[in-house]
C-alpha cells in the first residue's frame, strides 16, 4: 500500500489548510446551507458570502443570466451584515469545525476596517478575504481594486487593525493585474485570491433591454478559466506570497491546472450551484489524481509548470 498523499497546504501567516480546495465567496452561502450535501470539514475551507458592516439588500432582479459556458450575476452583495454574521452564522460553523474565511466587502476603507475590527478576536475565523473586486455595486471595491494605490491603502488599513491572515481578492478587469497584486503584497497581504468575475452584459433582443436589472454583471464559470489561469500564471511570477486561484473550476484537471501555474490553493465557485457536493468530491479526486501521477505531496504541483526552452 502506498503512503497517503499529503494534501495540506500552507497559505502563509501560519494558516495550514487540510487541503487546497475551498469554496468561493458568494457561491457557497454561509456554508450551512450545504450541510445536506457535504461534510464541511472535508473542505480546505469555506469562503462565505461577502460581509459588509451593515445588512445590504442587493440589486433588484433579474440578477442572473446564463451565457456560453458561464453566467453573469449581479447580486449586489446582499448580505446579513457583520453583526448578524457573528451572532447567527459563525457559532454553528465553528461547531462544525469548518475552516471559515470571511469575505469582506465595503464601499471605502472605513467599511473594510469596520468589518475587520468587528471580526477581530472572534473565534472560528481562519482568515479575511478582502473583496476589492466586485463589479456589481456602485462605488464598490471594484474601483478600489483597479488602482494599485487604493488597493495598498485598504490592505494596509486592515492590516493595522487585524491579526488574522489577510487575503486580498483581485479583479481581473485591469490592464496589469501584476501591479495590483504587487501593491497588495507590499501593503501586507498574506495571500492573494484571483480572480473575481469579469464585467459582462446580455441583452434581451426581443425587449431591447439588458437582461439584468443592474445592466451589467460579473461573468463566472468555465468560460473565464483560460483568462483566470493566465492571470494566476502572471501574478505567480511577480509576487512571492501564496495565491488562491479560481475561475471556472469544474473538475480535478482544472484544479491541477491552477496549481501548476502557481496557485497554492483553489476555490470552486459557480460549479457548486450545479452540484452542491462538488468541492468535497474534488478533494477526493485530487488525492486520487496525485496518487495516479506519483505525486506524494500536493505542494509539489504548485508552480510546477515547465516552460519549454
Amino acid at each position, binding site marked *: 500500500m502506498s503512503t497517503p498523499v499529503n494534501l495540506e497546504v500552507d497559505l502563509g501567516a501560519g494558516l495550514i489548510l487540510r487541503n487546497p480546495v475551498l469554496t468561493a465567496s*458568494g457561491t457557497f452561502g454561509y456554508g450551512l*446551507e450545504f450541510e445536506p450535501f457535504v461534510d464541511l470539514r472535508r473542505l480546505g475551507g469555506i469562503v462565505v458570502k461577502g460581509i459588509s458592516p451593515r*445588512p445590504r439588500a442587493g440589486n*433588484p432582479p433579474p440578477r442572473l443570466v446564463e451565457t456560453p459556458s458561464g453566467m453573469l450575476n449581479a447580486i449586489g452583495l446582499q448580505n446579513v451584515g457583520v453583526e448578524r454574521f457573528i451572532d447567527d452564522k459563525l457559532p454553528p460553523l465553528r461547531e462544525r469545525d469548518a475552516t471559515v474565511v470571511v469575505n469582506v466587502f465595503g464601499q471605502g476603507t472605513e467599511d473594510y476596517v469596520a468589518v475587520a475590527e468587528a471580526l477581530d478576536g472572534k473565534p472560528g475565523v481562519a482568515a479575511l478575504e478582502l473583496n476589492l473586486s466586485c463589479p456589481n455595486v456602485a462605488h464598490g471595491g471594484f474601483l478600489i481594486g483597479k488602482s494599485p494605490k487604493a488597493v495598498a491603502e485598504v490592505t494596509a488599513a486592515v492590516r493595522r487593525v487585524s491579526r488574522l491572515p489577510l487575503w486580498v481578492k483581485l479583479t481581473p478587469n485591469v490592464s496589469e493585474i501584476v501591479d495590483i497584486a504587487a501593491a497588495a503584497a507590499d501593503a501586507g497581504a498574506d495571500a492573494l485570491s484571483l480572480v473575481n468575475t469579469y464585467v459582462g452584459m446580455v441583452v434581451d433582443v426581443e425587449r431591447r433591454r439588458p437582461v439584468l436589472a443592474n445592466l451589467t454583471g460579473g461573468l463566472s*464559470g468555465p468560460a473565464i478559466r483560460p483568462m483566470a489561469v493566465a492571470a494566476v500564471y502572471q501574478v505567480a511570477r511577480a509576487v512571492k506570497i501564496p495565491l488562491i486561484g479560481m475561475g471556472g473550476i*469544474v473538475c480535478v484537471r482544472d484544479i491541477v491546472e491552477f496549481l501548476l501555474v502557481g496557485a497554492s490553493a483553489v476555490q470552486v465557485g459557480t460549479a457548486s450551484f450545479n452540484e452542491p457536493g462538488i468541492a468535497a468530491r474534488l478533494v477526493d479526486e485530487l488525492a486520487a489524481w496525485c496518487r495516479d501521477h506519483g505525486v506524494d505531496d500536493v505542494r509539489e504541483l504548485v508552480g510546477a509548470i515547465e516552460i519549454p526552452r
Partner: protein
Amino acid sequence: MPENITAQVEEQQALGGDYHLLRIAGPTIAAAARAGQFVMLGLGDPGEMLIRRPFSIARVIESAEGPVAFEILYKVVGRGTLAFSRLRPGAAMSVLGPLGRGFWLPAPEAPCRPILVAGGIGIAPFPLFVQQLGPAARHAEVIYGGRSAVDLPLAQWFEPRCGTLTLATEDGTEGLRGRITAPLEQALDRADEQEGSCVFACGPHPMLAAVARLCLERQIPCQLALEETMACGFGVCLGCVVPRRHPTDAFDRFARVCTEGPVFDAREIVL
C-alpha cells in the same frame, strides 16, 4: 430536506406544440413532493449545462409500494429544454429536490373552495395539486388560459377531475377568447357571495400581477407560484429574488423565490 441524485429518465412524451412530459425515477423526491415545489434538473456534466433548470413537480407516480417517480411538464423554450426534449428513457439526469415552499392547502378547520388559475406552462404544478387535494378537487374550479389551443396541453386531464374547468385562449381557438382575467373576475364575484374561496395561481408575471390585484381588491386569499431565474435552487446564490412588501431590514428587502417561495401569499410580495 432536498435530495441531490442522479436519476433515470423513465418516459418522455411529446404533447404537441413544444410541450413535453418527462417522467423521472425518484421515490424519495416523489414521496416528499408537495404541489408547487420544484426540482432543479441538469445533465450532470457542467460542461454541457453549467446551470441547472427549475421545473415544477407536475405529478407523482405511485406503484403498489408507493411513490416511485415524478413527472415534469415542460415547454421547449431554449437550450436546456431542447436538450431535455432529446433525452430518452434510460438517460441520466442530475436532480435536486423537492425544493421550496409549495402551496399550502386550505386548513380543514377553515375550508375554502379552491380556484386554480393557470397561464400557459403555469399549469405545471396543478396536476399534483389536484392529486393532493384528493376528493376536495371535486369542488375546485380551474381557469386555464393560453395563447392558443395547443398551449393547453393538460386540459383533458383536469376535465373529469375538477368541479369546473374554464378554458381561455387569446386567439379563441379553444374556450373563451381572451385572457383568464375575465372568467376569474366572474368566479371571484361568485366567490364573494359564497364566502370561503381561495385562489392558487401560476403563470407569467403579468398574469400573476393581474390575479393578485383582483384578489387583493376583494380580500380573497391568494397564493402565487412565481418564476425567477435560478442558479442554485436552494437559497445560496441569491439570484432568484422578489421584493418583499414589508421588509424588516435591508437584508430582508428581497425574498428568495427558491426557498421562501416559489409560492407566496400575494400580500407578501411586490410584483
